[in-house]
């Protein structure tokens, strides 16, 4: 394509150059206000947002260091872990490091990071934290807190955002922009969000324009409630259920939905298609699964299956303990079974008993691979908690602040969280790779005892 824009740092390492085509497409598509309309229209027709843009989507690379900055949208994400988990398991061959630097009520000026100092000090903190992590990707999640300044604050926001991005350019990282979510209407006595949503719209536009100017992806997180196409993909179980706890903060379901939307954009991933079709002891087809060792055993069949990648995390459960959305299942199709009831055992553990007909087509939604995903998510959350102790330790005043002459000796403990974080990451690296499981389908008479 002609006229491919030259990134500012073209002479810099290949990574950025490699990403250029994607950026270009973004520039084409993230074309000011019309953009969101395009996304929405496209979203209605297509399944995932990146498909709406055609061509190469943003792709994470082995060794990427992804730093997340922003307000509560980002800070609270670290306790959910959906985004990191999704990106990790969708890229089982890549080593990705995530560092969440979100801070409640933070603004593009670093207001929440000022500590005892001024806004300028807060900004310095933001800068040094981000640059100190040597990021290759920076996920920018600002806007909600800023938006409360309303229209009068818009110009300052735009300017502040520009300064922040210019400052962080030093890292030569690729930016990815998130738009703030909508203020969800939850009814009285919570406030009517109409006015605030008008502000959010304005701030979202600023972010979209900044993304466009910097040829970076912008991920629109508005329009969550009336499920957009990419949400339709995961079919919310109860469309009525709110996605926020208070109008402005995502609940578990909300993070699951939003993180999926982000992951779909950042990870070059087709629809989840994972299926095994057998006819007797013949493998008819498989998709996303490597099947081996298929053979008949007395009154049944046996094979080993290894997923190409783990399924996405399952939807969180609601208060009643029910899943709030469909997860990604593994489609199992068994033809040519003799009549009777069969039990599926995975790694020797019974999973389901059903008739031969019922085994004709069935989705496995809570197998060992799902558990493995959940294990990754648990580790991600544990890692994030340890990292939180590391970068935002309690008692900072005494450890590093103006009373460090009293307790600064104990500051030596803080770097000791690093190996703990790394240990969790090693464990994550091990678990992000799917392993082979033994599937056995055996007639009931044989397993009844």
């Amino acid at each position: 394509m002609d006229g491919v824009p030259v990134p500012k740092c073209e002479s810099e390492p290949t990574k950025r150059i490699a990403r250029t085509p994607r950026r270009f497409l973004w520039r084409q598509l993230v074309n000011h206000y019309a953009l969101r309309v395009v996304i929405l229209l496209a979203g209605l027709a297509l399944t995932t947002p990146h498909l709406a843009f055609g061509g190469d989507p943003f792709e994470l690379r082995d060794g990427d260091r992804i730093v997340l900055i922003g307000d509560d949208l980002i800070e609270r994400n670290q306790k959910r872990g959906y985004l990191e988990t999704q990106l990790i398991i969708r890229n089982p061959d890549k080593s990705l490091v995530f560092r969440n630097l979100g801070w409640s009520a933070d603004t593009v000026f670093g207001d929440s990071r000022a500590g005892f100092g001024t806004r300028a000090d807060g900004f310095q903190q933001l800068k040094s934290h981000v640059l100190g992590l040597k990021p290759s990707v920076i996920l920018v999640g600002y806007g909600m807190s800023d938006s409360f300044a309303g229209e009068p604050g818009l110009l300052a926001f735009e300017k502040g955002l520009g300064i922040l991005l210019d400052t962080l350019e030093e890292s030569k990282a690729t930016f990815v922009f998130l738009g703030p979510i909508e203020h969800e209407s939850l009814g009285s006595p919570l406030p009517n969000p109409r006015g605030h949503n008008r502000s959010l719209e304005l701030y979202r536009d600023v972010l979209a324009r900044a993304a466009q100017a910097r040829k970076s992806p912008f991920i629109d997180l508005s329009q969550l409630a009336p499920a957009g196409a990419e949400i339709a993909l995961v079919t919310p179980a109860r469309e009525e259920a709110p996605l926020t706890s208070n109008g402005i903060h995502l609940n578990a379901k909300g993070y699951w939905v939003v993180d999926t939307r982000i992951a779909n954009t950042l990870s070059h991933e087709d629809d989840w298609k994972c299926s095994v079709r057998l006819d007797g002891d013949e493998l008819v087809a498989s998709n996303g699964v490597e099947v081996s060792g298929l053979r008949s055993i007395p009154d049944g069949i046996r094979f080993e299956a290894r997923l190409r990648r783990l399924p996405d995390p399952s939807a969180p459960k609601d208060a009643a303990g029910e899943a709030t959305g469909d997860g990604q299942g593994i489609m199992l199709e068994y033809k040519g079974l003799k009549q009777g009831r069969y039990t599926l055992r995975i790694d020797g553990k019974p999973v389901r008993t059903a008739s031969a007909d019922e085994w004709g087509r069935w989705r496995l939604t809570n197998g060992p691979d799902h558990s493995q995903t959940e294990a990754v998510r648990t580790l991600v959350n544990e890692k994030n908690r340890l990292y939180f102790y590391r970068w935002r330790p309690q008692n900072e005043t005494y450890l590093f602040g103006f009373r460090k002459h009293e307790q600064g000796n104990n500051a030596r403990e803080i770097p000791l969280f690093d190996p703990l974080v790394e240990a969790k990451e090693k464990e994550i690296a091990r678990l992000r790779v799917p392993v082979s499981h033994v599937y056995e389908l055996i007639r009931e008479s044989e397993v009844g005892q």
Partner: protein
Amino acid sequence: MIARQRLFVSTLTLLWGMTASISALAQRAEFAIPDPDPEIERKSFVVAEGFEVNLFAADPSLAKPIQMNFDPQGRLWVVSSEVYPQIKPGQVANDKVLILEDRDGDGRADRTSVFAEGLLIPTGVEPGDGGAYVANSTELLHFQDQDGDGKADRKRVVLSGFGTEDTHHILHTLRWGPDGSLHFNQSIYIHSHIETPHGVKRLGGGGIWRFRPRSLELDVFIRGLVNPWGHHFDRWGQSFATDGAGGEGINYCLPGAYYVTAPDAVRILAGLNPGSPKYCGEEFVSGAHLPPAWSGSILTNDFRGNRVCRFVLSEDGAGYSSREQPELIKTPHVAFRPIDVKMGPDGAIYIADWYNPIIQHGEVDFRDPRRDHTRGRIWRVTAKNRPLVPRPKLVGASTETLLEALKASEDWTRHNARRVLTERGREILPKLKDWVASISKEDPNAETLKLEGLWVYQSLDEIEPELLRSLLNSPDHRVRAAAVRTAGHWRLHLDDALKLIGKSVADPHPRVRLEAVRALALFPSKEAAEAAMAGLDHPVDRFLDYALWLTARDLAPHWLPEVQAGRLDFQGKPERLIFALLAVDSPEVVKPLTALLKAGRVPSELTSKVLSTIAARGEPTDLELVFQLAIQPMASDRVNRPLLLDTLVRATRERKVRPTGDLTKVQLLLMADNATRAAAARAAGAWKLDSLRASLVSIVSSKGGPESVQRAATDALAEMGGEASRADLKRLASPDSPGATRRLAIGALASVEPETAARLAVDRFAESSRPGEVESLMARFLELQNGSKALAQALKGKSIPADVAKLALRRVQASGRPEEALTQALSASGQLANLPKGISPGELKQLVEEVAKHGSAQRGEQIFRRKELSCLKCHAIAGAGGQVGPGLESVGASAPLDYLIESLMNPSKAIKENYHALVVATEDGKIVTGIKLRQTESNLILRDAEDQEISLPLGSIEDQKPAGSLMPENLTESLTRSEFLDLVRFLSELGKIGPYSISKERVARRWRVLEPTKDEADRISRNGLDATLETKGLTTWAPAYSLVSGVLPLSALKPTRTYQGMIGLASTQVDVTTAGPVKLRLNSIDGLKLWVDDQRIETQTDLTLDLKPGVHTLTISVDMARRKDNLLCTLEDLPNSPARAAMVVGK
């Protein structure tokens, strides 16, 4: 002296220069860790007459309780943290919320269950809304148990973004207000940034939040306080807070007010018990089980002094006064750390005992092995021979029963009934309406009961205008005040809220007026400001004055532009407009003020204030107006000339503006009174009035002139600058000049030619060792950014007397800055041996033993009071003394001996919060060191080592950085070893049970004693005391302080010979806030005469004084020949007197 700023020393010192391990720390434990048996602890309690204590719960089922609250079922919820103060790498945060139940009602918990775990230093718990709110570091959580198994299975983040810069300051003290608001506190170091659906809320510093859990509205209720771990409401909804690191006892919470340490505070409200130790937790006690006199009093905990204390509040105008009573519990047991106190369902008092020999963590190492992480107790205190209150059954009771429970005399019952009613929701409304209607007019509590009803409506967010209206007109002013506050909260739902509240501004009771004035601040309109300022038509006390000032400022964006545009003049009442303008004190108020001044509408008593505001904020032509008025020949009668001149000078220095017109006329004032002369000289310097140079030189050269004027003139020459000035100063600084002149001239020269001045200073040091001279010269160099460098340079190769070097070094250390080059130069020039820093563990251990064995607290107190140690210059005991360092009244009860010793030797190693020095470099080359008091939008205010407040414009600050302690390091070097042991022993006894605990009597502790000049002595000798006092002819009073016991020793007096014999004079002050008779008691009247405000009164041991509100001076003369006893002067209440009076404390 002593720990001017820190109380304990971290173990850092120990680790210094050696590879001490944690086990080495363990070996140095100076006190035996007490036997943890709860019965041993219980037996150590000295309990108030008529009360007894039993153990309700203890470890191992309970570790480190932090906050506790009962639920309506009578179960006690406790948050406990073993992780505090800091999570270790690899440690799993598994702190807990516990539920303690006493099912059989025997006063002992028979079941402890874990409701929630996996928490990180949870510091607050408050049951409610079907579960419990829990403060968990950065978050406010709500836990619910949905399946009824007694364990939380649902967690909701209610709010997040609370700061964690200090784990004993994090979100704490959760408390339901009677109106259904959840309150919680944070402390000085915490910066919280919270997103709510209503917007982002930030609070950097201490304060109390007010939160509506249903609508998620979050607001700051009050700002400031150092570490406010106590907050409770009286029966009429008024808030009071205690401070675990402040020294003013009970704080009345005026809505929206700023308290000590509040960020951006221009003016703060003081607590009700200045000079108090620190308190943690707070509970109004009430109910039938306790003796009737206890009802309505406050319990709180002196956790440092191992005491549970009681205060009685009484109304004092718009606010309150508070008086400490004998303790409920005191003990010598060092691990008894009462930190929370609550009334229980049975009418007994419950006390959470954090149980720890080590408190705090700022100053004591996080990992000090003496810290206890596993123990904790809940004590239950009952009144002997008084029946308990039957435990009310509220959960599951009928709505009618719950409404009847609102009539209970126990706050516990009413509060929990309100909670259950609130959680039932709107279904109770019809019955609530009937209940309110059924309240009999004959019922003596009818009004208070209706208020209970109003609060239930408010808790349910149900507007009930009719009930509100009736309570706004209640015969009980306390109910009216509460109703006004509710009206403010309901303002958006009432048609005529502004009018309703505006009416209360004219209420006969000052507190109702105060509530109305503050409620009006919630209305963003000029009409609200107009309505509020009408409050000035009625008597205004200090609380109301603060409220008016605050509201005028809060509403300034709505009324000030209107005034500027000439559309608003506050109903043509200049005093209202002037009050509001002075409150705002910004450049915008200058034009309206000058207009009033020119129109002759400024009342004479306000003229000086108006002029100084104009001078501080105005443009050159405005300044000219002030200047012209200041130099008018007759002006001295009407205005405070020195104040105005100095304000103009400040405007010139800080804002670079000067009055227009001919400024040389200031020369006229060089011949006025001394204060005016000095100010005029400063003006001549600041305005660089060359034509006045000769006059200034002659002032400096004249013999016997007052030093203040001479110094001003010398400095003016320096500020004027130029070759001529330098020449003048060098001449004045030459050895030909008298010593004092030389010193002043060298000091002034330092600011323009530091190198020359430094050489001259070193020459001077070589020949004079007068302490005052050395210190004052050192001070001049140290206040300059390049001063110490110049001095160090000039000292090279020079020799100065060792004593001079020591004095100079002391001054350097008091700067709070390292100044290594200068320290070395002084040591070298004075040939001082390099003193080894620190002390070895072995030496420390030995010292600790010797203090216990040989130290005498009685001798130590005398050493403490020695002038040359200047301890009292910076530290107060029970409020009396300097305010630069922390008060020491309970230091012995809280600080282990080893920390005390290390604090004396190395003051900067551990510093009490809020007592860190700040070093500020200003654009004019100066460097200022002091304790940060507050910072407004425009200025940083510091308290320097001389206890002076220094206000620095933010724009003039080039750089600022934290420094250590302002306490000099070598203060104790002049002491012999045995004196040192005595001093430590004295400090270690402060606050412990015994002769060195502070009595609760209102004893005069802060005195002024006359140190007469020769002239004054002559006059007394000639005219006698009465005539001299009546003509107010005595001005040279020096501070003096009572002993810890309260007596002022006669040796503190400076007697002078008169024709009546050797007479000593001492004076003290009484602050009367509500007029009425009070009793003043003297231990004996032998040899005494008394004057009140310079009027002689008859001398009796029991005097009845009937004084107007304000500060009154009591002067006592002592005939040294006839008096043998020391002086003890106590203020006491008279039965049925409305008077509220207190002894003035402070420096």
